[in-house]
């Protein structure tokens, strides 16, 4: 039995869960949670099985994907949309971490969502549907299929951000998330349309074959490809919350923390990165677009990190951190592709996907720990927390692991991938010195990341007991369990680099690093840049320690100085992006709509009513001729008769 033939079951299992919970969840225990967990568990087993099967294939043909398709819609005689599965090493990696996270977070939800009552049914139904979307996105075999699942995820994101939709802020955040990503989706859809018309096919196999195999490269309509790939990246910007469409993600924290962990940290927001990675064979044909990707990545990384520096909401800090880390992945992809085009190797591709893999674990862990804290203290404001490490041992240690990991302290997982990311950017600078600047941005971001992450940890777990922490206690086993498991992953997922012949030799583009684990270790630890980035991270941690634990570094006078206050406020106001979005909506689009409405009522309908009014008015005036006086009628009859007779005489010669 070849398990790969049954990979299409992976997205199907959660949808079964969705249907069962949707109809019968109300009558089940915990609103159908067992069904959701069974669905997630079976999908997880199948995913890992499929993933390992793929990864362990004979590496003679690493680019070869397992494809199985059936016709979905015959649009015209020569345009066909297929549905099917496309499994290669990237898919396998995605399947593995996505399924593990979905399963763990579902388990965690039992404890976290326990008090939600009847709403639990909706929650579990929607997360099941989300799992369908995510698995579908990963295994999809063509762009349109991918887009369909992409949008299903978007819908679930909308529904789950608005889970407490009776709160105006949640309803508003949900709308914002949907609309902002929708802007990206329109670009993505247009890109897909251009690809479809220009290449006559949307299947990955077909498109990639044409892009890779065709050595002349002259047969592809390159201008259109460039536009299409740029537009597809537009979709990725929206989904992965990159500048300038990043602003929905912090607001998305209005949803339950499990949702933030699952959708807005570990899986869905990776969709954009996955999309670019998936389309890499096409991207490497258009280096200018890759440069744009790298620049957006570099700018977003530092931009988002800066907003995390002074935020007081524990979840929002993590949200900015997510944006910043996703930007790292984009940066690496852009750099890798650019290097591939000009230099012939794409180490950024492996670095990016590797970072995505690690980030999924430690960021999900960070969110779940934050959820555990929020569950215990009932607030998201870090100023009301503090000293929790005594009461919540498991949570605090798990979060410390995650924070060390994201900060890039060896040997935690984040170190390995972050180092690879920065190295790949540095390498790309050989082709374009712009990448030196981007590398510098990435390095500064590493410092900022370590700082705000430990600021968060210290404010929450260290120091004096906060006002909201009186009755705090460790979370139940269903929550703590996943934390422990994830902490193990967050610590160790970086060692994937050394298992067997390692991550880089399995998930790569072009050719793999042809080196052994030991050589790789040597390469990493003989490079001054490694020490620089670790040093920056340690500096960030130390600074946070002195600011928030020892309190020996006091920045109050900087913050209260006129310039400092302005910067502080700008960061707090998120560079005024929310105001800008509101402004576009309320001050530009809505007034235009009002004008259109006015024009409709008074312009177009005015003409319609005017025509009918003038006709009835004319009739009313003409009716005055009906005097009711018989003499008038007789006079008119005779006058008319006379006129006719005279005319007949003159004209007809009567």
């Amino acid at each position, binding site marked *: 039995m070849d398990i790969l033939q049954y990979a299409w079951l992976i997205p199907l299992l959660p949808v079964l869960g969705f249907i069962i919970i949707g109809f019968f969840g109300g009558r089940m225990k915990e609103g159908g949670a067992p069904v959701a967990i069974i669905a997630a568990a079976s999908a997880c087993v199948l995913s890992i099985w499929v993933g390992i099967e793929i990864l362990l294939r004979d590496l003679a043909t690493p680019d070869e994907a397992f494809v199985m398709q059936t016709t979905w819609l015959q649009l015209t005689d020569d345009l066909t949309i297929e549905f099917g599965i496309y499994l290669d090493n990237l898919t396998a990696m995605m399947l593995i971490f996505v399924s593990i996270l979905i399963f763990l977070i579902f388990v965690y939800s039992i404890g976290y969502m326990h008090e939600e009552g009847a709403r639990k049914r909706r929650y579990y139904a929607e997360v099941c549907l989300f799992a369908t979307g995510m698995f579908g996105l990963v295994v999809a075999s063509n762009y349109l299929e991918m887009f369909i699942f992409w949008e299903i995820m978007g819908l679930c994101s909308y529904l789950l951000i608005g889970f407490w939709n009776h709160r105006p802020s949640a309803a508003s955040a949900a709308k914002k998330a949907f609309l902002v990503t929708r802007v990206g989706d329109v670009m993505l859809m247009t890109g897909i349309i251009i690809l479809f018309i220009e290449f006559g096919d949307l299947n990955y196999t077909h498109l990639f074959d044409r892009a890779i195999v065709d050595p002349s490269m002259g047969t592809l309509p390159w201008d259109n490809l460039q536009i299409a790939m740029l537009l597809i990246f537009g979709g990725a910007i929206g989904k992965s919350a990159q500048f300038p469409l990043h602003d929905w993600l912090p607001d998305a924290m209005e949803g339950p923390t499990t949702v933030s962990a699952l959708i807005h940290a570990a899986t869905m927001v990776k969709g954009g990165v996955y999309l670019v990675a998936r389309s890499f064979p096409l991207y490497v044909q258009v280096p200018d677009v890759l440069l744009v990707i790298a620049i957006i990545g570099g700018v977003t990384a530092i931009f988002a990190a800066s907003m995390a520096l002074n935020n007081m909401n524990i979840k929002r800090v993590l949200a900015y951190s997510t944006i910043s880390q996703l930007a790292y992945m984009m940066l690496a992809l852009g750099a890798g592709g650019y290097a591939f085009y000009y230099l012939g190797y794409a180490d950024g591709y492996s670095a990016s996907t590797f970072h995505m893999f690690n980030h999924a674990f430690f960021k999900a862990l960070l969110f779940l720990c934050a959820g555990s804290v929020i569950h215990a203290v009932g607030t998201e404001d870090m100023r009301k927390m503090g000293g929790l490490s005594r009461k919540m041992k498991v949570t605090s240690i798990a979060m410390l692991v995650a924070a060390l990991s994201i900060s890039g302290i060896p040997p935690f997982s984040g170190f390995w991938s972050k180092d690879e990311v920065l190295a790949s950017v540095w390498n790309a600078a050989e082709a374009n010195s712009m990448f030196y600047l981007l590398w510098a941005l990435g390095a500064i971001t590493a410092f900022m990341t370590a700082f705000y992450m430990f600021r968060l940890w210290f404010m929450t777990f260290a120091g004096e007991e906060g006002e909201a922490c009186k009755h705090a206690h460790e979370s139940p086993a269903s929550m703590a369990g996943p934390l422990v498991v994830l902490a193990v992953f967050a610590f160790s997922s970086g060692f994937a680099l050394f298992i067997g012949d390692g991550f880089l030799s399995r998930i790569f583009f072009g050719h793999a690093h042809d080196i052994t684990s030991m050589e790789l270790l040597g390469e990493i630890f003989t490079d001054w840049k490694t020490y620089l980035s670790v040093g920056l991270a340690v500096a960030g941690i130390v600074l946070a320690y002195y600011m928030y634990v020892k309190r020996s570094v006091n920045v109050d006078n900087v913050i209260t100085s006129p310039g400092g206050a302005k910067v502080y406020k700008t960061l707090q106001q998120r560079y005024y992006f929310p105001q800008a979005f509101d402004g576009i909506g309320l001050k530009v689009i809505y007034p235009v709509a009002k004008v259109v409405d006015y024009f409709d009522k008074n312009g177009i309908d005015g003409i319609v009513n005017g025509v009918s009014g003038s006709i009835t008015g004319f009739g009313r005036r003409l009716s005055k001729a009906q005097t*009711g*006086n*018989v*003499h008038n009628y*007789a006079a008119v009859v*005779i006058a008319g008769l006379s006129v006719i007779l005279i005319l007949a005489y003159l004209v007809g010669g009567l």
Partner: protein
Amino acid sequence: MIPIEYFLGFAAILFVIGAYGVMTAKNGIVVLMSVEIMLNAANMNFITFSSFFNDSRGQAFALISMAIAAAEVAVGLAILLNLYKSRGTTDIDEVNIMRW
């Protein structure tokens, strides 16, 4: 033999007198009588042409038109009688409720 122009001229004069009466008279009964005169002018023409062209259909028409005139007067007088009963007048200028 009297030329045909005399008959036709006589009929025309009768018709004009009738038309003048219809247009000027205030009393409804006078209007009805004027209408009768106009009808008789038409009958005159029928009979004239019947006689000159030796075609008896004209005379038949004249008879039909007389019968219709009688019926018309009956209806007209009935209307006027009712009008007089309800309004106390036969002055048709005062009866104009059928206007716009």
